[in-house]
């Protein structure tokens, strides 16, 4: 905006340019302050909520925070870089299996298992990124979906180790961390909540830093016009690959945390449905907003939860499950609310939202 003004009245504004630039810089600082305050506030609110929430919602919120990390990872690629993947279930479940299998079969400790999960996600996303980024648009969606399908079938094929559809349950003793001279039991609700909050905060801050960095700006430029970005001298392939890897690593971290915190590993998490869900959460919350994924996950989780109760109360003999609600939500969202909750708020009222 300021740039356009400046070029339009270049001659006349010579004298006024300096104060205006200074004002713009001051406004930038003020908005940076607001942004930091907002994100710190959200983290503080989540920390405070654990003391007031009843047990059921306390557990649900821990789960939502982990799933929101998954959504934030997805948002990096879909929202900022504009690459719509239909295969992110494979990155989530790479983390899930990387952590779950190494803890269950190899007897690794929790931190080592978590690292194994994230590493699995890093390697897989780098490999898939190099291959899938050769395509664009619709072909990219289908290729990622197919790679995810191969991953899903692999988890079924090796069911001797993965347990296939049934999955495996991580026993309680394997989910205890000993660090700094004390033990943390991840099956304990409070510890679990704090661990989920720690991961969520870490990924939220990392996302915020990333999207405000030059790399984040280049990703948005690629989304808006890839050819122009190439022409400006940026290596768009390298930037997109970095985005895929960052996104894959975040999703794998969510998967690894899910396995360790909730103790269950199964191939359902690798199915197509878990590639669709993060897309839905991000769309609902607002693509290319840092807090949108959390909001979307929160809303969708409770929407499904409540509609399940209502459906079974009103029409008990129907089999219409939450998946149908997801379908209706997807269509309504894309028709009437394509920018999502935070996207609309940013457009109407708060243009400084990151």
């Amino acid at each position, binding site marked *: 905006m300021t740039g356009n003004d400046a070029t339009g009245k270049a001659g006349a504004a010579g004298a006024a340019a300096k104060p205006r630039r200074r004002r713009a810089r001051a406004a930038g600082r003020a908005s940076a302050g607001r942004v930091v305050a907002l994100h710190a506030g959200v983290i503080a609110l989540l920390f405070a909520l654990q003391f007031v929430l009843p047990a059921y919602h306390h557990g649900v919120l821990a789960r939502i925070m982990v799933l929101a990390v998954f959504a934030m990872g997805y948002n990096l690629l879909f929202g900022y870089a504009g690459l719509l993947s239909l295969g992110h279930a494979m990155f989530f479940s790479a983390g899930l299996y990387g952590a779950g299998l190494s803890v269950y079969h190899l007897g690794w400790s929790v931190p080592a298992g978590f690292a194994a999960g994230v590493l699995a996600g890093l390697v897989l996303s780098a490999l898939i990124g190099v291959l899938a980024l050769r395509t664009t648009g619709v072909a990219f969606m289908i290729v990622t979906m197919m790679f995810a399908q191969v991953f899903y079938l692999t988890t079924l094929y090796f069911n001797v180790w993965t347990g296939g559809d049934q999955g495996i349950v991580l026993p309680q003793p394997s989910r205890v961390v000993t660090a700094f001279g004390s033990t943390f039991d991840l099956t304990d609700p409070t510890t679990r909540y704090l661990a989920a909050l720690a991961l969520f905060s870490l990924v939220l801050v990392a996302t915020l830093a990333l999207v405000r960095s030059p790399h984040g700006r280049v990703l948005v430029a690629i989304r808006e016009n890839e050819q122009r970005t190439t022409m400006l001298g940026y290596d768009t392939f390298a930037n997109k690959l970095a985005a895929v890897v960052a996104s894959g690593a975040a999703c794998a971290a969510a998967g690894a945390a899910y396995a360790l915190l909730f103790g269950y590993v199964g191939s359902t998490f690798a199915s197509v449905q878990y590639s669709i869900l993060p897309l839905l959460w991000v769309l609902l919350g607002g693509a290319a907003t840092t807090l949108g994924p959390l909001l979307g996950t929160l809303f969708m989780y409770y929407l499904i939860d409540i509609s399940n109760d209502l459906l079974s109360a009103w029409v008990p003999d129907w089999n219409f499950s939450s998946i149908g609600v997801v379908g209706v939500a*997807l269509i309504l969202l894309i028709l009437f609310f394509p920018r999502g909750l935070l996207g609309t708020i940013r457009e109407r009222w708060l243009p400084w939202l990151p």
Partner: protein
Amino acid sequence: MAFGPHLLLAALEGLVTSAVLALMALGLSLVFGVMRVVNVAHGEFYMLGAVVAWWVSSLVSGHPALGFLAALVISPLVVGAVALAAERLVLRRLNYNPEATIVATIGLLYILQQLALTFYGPDARPVAAPFSYRVVFPWFGYSGYKLAVIGASVVLLLVTWFVLMRTRLGLVMRATQYDRETAQAFAIPVDRVYAGVFALGAMLAAIAAVLIVPISQAHYLMGLDPLLLSFIVVIIGGLGSLRGTLVAAVLIGLSDGIISAFFQPTLAKMIATLLVALVLVFRPTGLFGTAAR
């Protein structure tokens, strides 16, 4: 059974798959070619076709052929109407944006699937074949109906080809596919062509479903595997290329039949899906496709 006859049996089974797959993939390919959108709900139109076929044939008493023929007429009409409604109410409002359409058709997929589960139930139900003649080979007997499916599919494909290449309707569709804006400038009602093509694509899937229902039963989750297979076919054949789609359908159907006769199905699916993904990565336009315009 010796290897040769076993291979023949596998090839015949593969040809039946090819026949059904070709019809279904043709529908997907038409929609992609003309409208430039990917219809993820295509498999659910197939499922809906099978479920409606079961419903119609269960209403008709008398010889099973009567019920089957009634289903063959009514089921595509019902499915076409559903597709038309979806196109008018959702896709048109999205202005056929490729990514928004994928999201919306995923939603449609879930809705149709869950509605089928609600009103049709979780059971797999059969439709009686219109006739039960057995063709006797020297080594084994084979269902005459399956051979008839192959024949019917060939006839339907020829009809579709004739409509596309030799009629005014087909000309209008091809013109829209070639260049939407110029077609519009030449007073072709592009909007109505889109609606028609989307309904036609769904009807082809429904016909494929009616043909297959006497062989494999109607079930509310039956849409997913054929959807993935027809994606594979359309991609291998080249997105939007009808000739490529047909060749790929025969290729994939045959190899599916032969591979699953000799290997474990999960492993076969894994390898096939991986190969196709790699084809798309290294030859994004498919084997017969031309670069997207």
